[in-house]
């Protein structure tokens, strides 16, 4: 039987706030363990949580940007379970009344656009962090750090609209990009500011009823999301083809072995006994606030991609690559402002610039070559001061040393040779030095032109103006 895979993703995004969701502790994690805690996030008796307004604002921004509906009235709920990194014995979350209902995200898959629906977006607090056994000290102990406890998270729950591991990956990548554009989450999966759980089930092709699903946790990279779902699909297919049934359970992805394994039942108590949080009053989001947030939504990747094509005349491929990161698209636009030849800028940004960034693990805004510096380099090429070939070396030096293009060109004497008399002299010497090739060329072996160009460039340490070399060579070879 042919099966269809049905996938829904639950994504937890850490909101970019200074303080925690219900207390004034900082959200930065460079701190020592338990250094950013207070009676509220430690769960001490007699304290009251007070909601961080900015966390609501960022969730509204996300929901509105994805065409969700803001619930005009909503409240918080307690999700009850025991775990050492949850000091209160409950997590403050939202259950029946999430802040945002519905919404959608468009993804591009195999050249077509697909709309993925969202069920909801709600606000909740993060738990703490545990380090187990010998990873810190005693193998029989766990070690708990509550700095992360109470940090604001936004949970974005998709409908079961995804149909393949690749689609799930593309959805997550797109979501990350949109969250970065909205400036609501830094999207760092390695550091856990973006986390993903996947609900996976199979059903016979052509049927509508959903099969029994499993939930896979611990997916901390795009690659893991795709791999874990692909493994889980095959595992469920095996179960079904053997005539058995899939057990509804939570599974963990073991990235080292590339398999999903059932979580031990001890940690699983899917009976959270949600009830309304009595310590927090309900929210009624004013229409004015919603309108203000709507106005503040920046240009999103899809719109920016279209604008890059229409305004700058870039090929769709270039636009895709550039808008995939907001910082990269900003860098491109800042450079084009100073050097208004978009395709040339795009080639440099996607080529040499991106290569150096990747090697150095820099973000575009951390690069030693600023848009101003890159524009200066491009002007030197444009004015014919240096050749495009030499410019690549100059760019590497700029990136390495942080110096300007003009300084490097002057220091290393890289100014392009565009004096036709001097060039003619060099070419004459080249031709005189290679009588055999010259004879062959004149006998009709015209592709030797490239050889002579190469020799001339070599003789001038790459400084010869290539267009002039071509013209002069053709003249002299006549």
């Amino acid at each position, binding site marked *: 039987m042919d099966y269809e895979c049905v996938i829904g993703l639950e994504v937890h995004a850490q909101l970019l*706030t*200074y*303080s925690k969701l219900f*207390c*004034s*502790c*900082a959200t930065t994690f460079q701190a*020592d*363990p*338990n*250094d950013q*805690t*207070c*009676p*509220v996030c*430690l769960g001490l008796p007699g*304290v*009251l949580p*007070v*909601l*961080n*307004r*900015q*966390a*609501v604002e960022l969730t509204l921004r996300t929901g509105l940007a994805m065409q969700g509906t803001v619930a005009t009235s909503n*409240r918080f709920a307690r999700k*009850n379970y*025991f*775990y*050492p990194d949850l000091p209160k014995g409950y997590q403050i979350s939202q259950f029946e009344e999430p802040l945002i209902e519905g919404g959608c995200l468009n993804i591009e898959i195999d050249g077509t656009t697909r709309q993925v629906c969202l069920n909801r977006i709600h606000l909740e607090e993060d738990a703490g962090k*545990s*380090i*187990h*056994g010998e990873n*810190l*000290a*005693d*193998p*029989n*102990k*766990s*070690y*708990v*750090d*509550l700095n992360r406890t109470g940090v604001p998270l936004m949970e974005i729950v998709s409908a079961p609209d995804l149909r393949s591991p690749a689609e799930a990956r593309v959805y997550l990548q797109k979501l990350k990009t949109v969250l970065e554009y909205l400036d609501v989450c830094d999207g760092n999966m390695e550091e856990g500011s973006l986390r993903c759980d996947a609900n996976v089930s199979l059903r016979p092709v052509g049927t509508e009823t959903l099969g029994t699903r499993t939930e896979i946790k611990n997916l901390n990279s795009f690659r893991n999301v795709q791999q874990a779902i692909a493994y889980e699909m095959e595992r469920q297919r095996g179960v079904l083809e053997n005539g058995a049934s899939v057990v509804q359970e939570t599974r963990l992805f073991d990235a080292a072995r590339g398999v999903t394994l059932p979580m*031990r039942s001890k*940690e699983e*108590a899917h*009976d959270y*006994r949600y009830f*309304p949080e*009595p310590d*927090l*009053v*309900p*929210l*009624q989001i004013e229409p004015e606030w919603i309108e203000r947030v709507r106005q503040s939504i920046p240009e999103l990747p899809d719109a920016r991609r279209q604008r890059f094509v229409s305004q700058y005349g870039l090929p769709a491929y270039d636009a895709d690559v550039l808008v995939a990161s907001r910082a990269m698209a900003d860098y491109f636009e800042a450079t084009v402002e100073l050097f208004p030849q978009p395709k040339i800028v795009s080639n440099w940004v996607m080529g040499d610039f991106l290569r150096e960034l990747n090697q150095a693990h820099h973000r575009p805004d951390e690069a030693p070559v600023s848009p101003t510096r890159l524009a200066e380099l491009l002007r030197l090429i444009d004015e014919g001061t240096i050749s495009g070939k030499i410019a690549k070396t100059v760019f590497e030096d700029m990136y390495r040393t942080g110096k300007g293009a003009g300084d490097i060109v002057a220091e290393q004497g890289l100014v392009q040779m565009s004096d036709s008399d001097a060039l003619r002299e060099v070419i004459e010497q080249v031709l005189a030095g290679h009588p055999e090739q010259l004879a062959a060329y004149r006998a009709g072996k015209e592709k030797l032109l490239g050889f002579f160009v190469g020799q001339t460039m070599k003789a001038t340490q790459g400084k010869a103006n290539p267009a002039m070399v071509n013209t002069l060579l053709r003249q002299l070879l006549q």
Partner: protein
Amino acid sequence: MSDGHIIISEEQVAHVARLARLGLDADEQRRLTDQLNTILTYMEQLSEVPTEDVEPTAHVFDLVNVYRADETGRRAGGTSLASQEAALSNAPETEQHFFVVPRIVE
């Protein structure tokens, strides 16, 4: 023993006790089931109150939208930050500024 009216079964009590990590022996479980049924039966009187015209309430105050500004530190009001030392001072065991608990996962 209550008037025999069963609202919560002994199995439900056992389940709730497990969720609350309470280790009840058979006697306690039976006694608590009886007591809970007595309490719940008494509380059932509330269902006689007509509530068709009453909005569902999850909070006793007629209050909405209480926020704090996104600021860190003491001056933000509401909470006083604990020092790391104070945060750890009630812990039975600490190590390198972590709370220490029995190992949680394999």
